[in-house]
């Protein structure tokens, strides 16, 4: 083992924020400036870039949940299933009961979290590949449920022509104006706000005592039990938070695409949410964002290769895992640490 690997592995012993050379607050600010000011300034008129960025932001938001389940030592492939649940909650409430999208957004997360808690309580006892495979089954089961109960979900016909988010006002004061047809910036800013809120909360969680407990669950559950930690409770909480992220993200996509189908989120989405966490680096809160950014942008850039696009893309993904098995950020971090050593000496 070389130094490159030992450093991120020591995340358990040292509080993340102290060990990390990437200053979290400054970094968060940088992301926010780049997103809210940089992108609109440079590409404000380009719907394509805005759409890629919007999608990337919310996809990484959903992936934060997967990242959190990784933090407790579980490989979560159910995220697409819970995103689908979120999409359906919003779609049904908006189309059938005329509920405001702004209420549906958190509500979708809540419903997904509650269902996640109910399923998670027994399922989280499983570990390793068993957990990975059972969560894969959950994603499939969600798709099949959406297909099998047309009275509620409209089944195969999907729920289409959802209205755009309306105005959000409090005591007559307009907080968010109604989204206009064809306007891309509102969705772009909403996605960015979700991303920043999601990132901020993950960072709070990770640096708090709860975060330390989560990590201890991954490292050694028996030890955690012997320390008197109610591991079942913590596991379920982590999983519910993860499902909340999925539900909110799913609700966002239902509004962005103005429709939901049983195929809107599938197993392959679950896989990609996981891939984003890895490519970025599992030891870093911001990992899913970096992973999604790198992967989605490179897929778009490879478009010129036409029918070789997917083959080259997956080839690069394999190469990425081979050369940087701990993610892009771990390589950067190791490099920074080496530079620091050199300057100290």
């Amino acid at each position, binding site marked *: 083992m070389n130094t490159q690997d030992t450093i991120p592995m020591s995340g358990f012993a040292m509080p993340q924020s102290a060990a990390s050379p990437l200053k979290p607050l400054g970094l968060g600010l940088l992301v926010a400036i780049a997103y809210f000011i940089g992108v609109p300034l440079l590409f404000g008129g380009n719907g394509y870039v805005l759409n890629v960025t919007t999608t990337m932001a919310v996809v990484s938001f959903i992936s934060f949940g997967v990242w959190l389940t990784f933090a407790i030592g579980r490989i979560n492939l159910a995220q697409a299933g819970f995103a689908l649940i979120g999409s359906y909650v919003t779609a049904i409430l908006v189309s059938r009961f005329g509920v405001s999208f702004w209420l549906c957004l958190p509500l979708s997360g809540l419903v997904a979290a509650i269902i996640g808690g109910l399923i998670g309580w027994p399922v989280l006892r499983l570990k390793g590949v068993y957990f990975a495979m059972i969560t894969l089954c959950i994603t499939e089961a969600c798709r*099949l449920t959406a297909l099998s109960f047309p009275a509620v979900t409209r089944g195969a016909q999907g729920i289409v022509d959802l209205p755009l988010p309306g105005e959000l006002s409090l005591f007559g004061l307009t907080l968010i104006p109604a989204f206009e047809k064809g306007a891309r910036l509102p969705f772009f800013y909403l996605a960015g706000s979700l991303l920043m809120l999601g990132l901020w909360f993950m960072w709070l969680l990770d640096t708090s005592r709860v975060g330390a407990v989560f990590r201890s669950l991954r490292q050694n559950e028996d030890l955690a039990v012997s320390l008197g930690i109610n591991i079942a409770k913590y596991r379920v909480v982590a999983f519910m938070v993860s499902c909340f992220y999925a539900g909110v993200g799913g609700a966002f996509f239902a509004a962005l695409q103005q429709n939901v189908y049983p195929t809107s989120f599938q197993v392959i989405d679950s896989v990609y949410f996981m891939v984003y966490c890895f490519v970025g680096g599992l030891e870093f809160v911001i990992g899913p964002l970096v992973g999604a950014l790198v992967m989605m942008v490179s897929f778009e850039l490879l478009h010129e290769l036409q029918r070789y696009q*997917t*083959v080259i893309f997956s080839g690069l993904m394999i190469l990425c895992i081979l050369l940087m098995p701990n993610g892009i950020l771990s390589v950067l971090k190791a490099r920074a640490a080496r530079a620091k050593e050199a300057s100290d000496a």
Partner: protein
Amino acid sequence: MTQVLLNALVVGTTYALIALGITIIFSIMKVVNFAHGQLYMIGGFVVYYFNVVFGLPFWFGLLMSFVIVGALGIAMELFLFRPVMLRVKREEVTMLLAMGTAVFLESLALIVFGEKQRGVPPIATGIVELFGARLPTGRVVVIVVAALLIVALMLFIGYTKTGRALRAMAQDRDATALQGVNLKWLSAMGFGLGTGLAGLAGGLLVAIFAVHTGAGTAVSIKAFLMIMIGGAGVLSGAILGGFVLGVLESVGYALLPGSMTFLIIFLIVIGFLIVRPHGIMGKPWG
């Protein structure tokens, strides 16, 4: 009802063959090979090319599907999984690597083999009537061959020196190494055996079904269901899991509306794993 049970027997046998390869790799390497379905698909195309395009006998094509896909597996072990496993301890990484390989193989296959589904001329014609149920002769041949292959594999694992070494490695890598067994050679060989079986299953089943480049993922998901039911990493569990899924599927389709069948199978499997986390035959593992 005889037809339903006969269907279950055929489906179960083919499923068992599919589940064996993924189980071997899991037991010796602790890797869940997400690319299993894609390797199965390539096995089918190998047979198609030898049999239909080059005009060689089906059985030769079948042999080649084992050899070629097995060799592919050895290459995967040597150049992908080994270097990564040496560097990282987290099991998730190998899983991700297998997923990447699955996407890669599938998109490459699409370019090389094209988008159409392929089949080979029937290996046997005619239909056997059994208690009022119909069983095409081709299917009889295929399940007999599949059963023979399964028995041969069990004998190989149980009674040959290499087979015993593989079993020992599955139980305890370090102890096996102390016995003077060359682990490097053995794990490459085990990986090749597992993928070769995937190729063999694809190659054999193309005789009665058909193959197309997108078939892999669904096969992989079914293979996961089987090893979860039977217990990951136990050969007898894989066979049992294959048959249980075959029975569930055949009986389910006969009794339930089609769209509910797999939803209920998924729910049964989830419920079952909660009660028995390591499958029917599995051992507690990480």
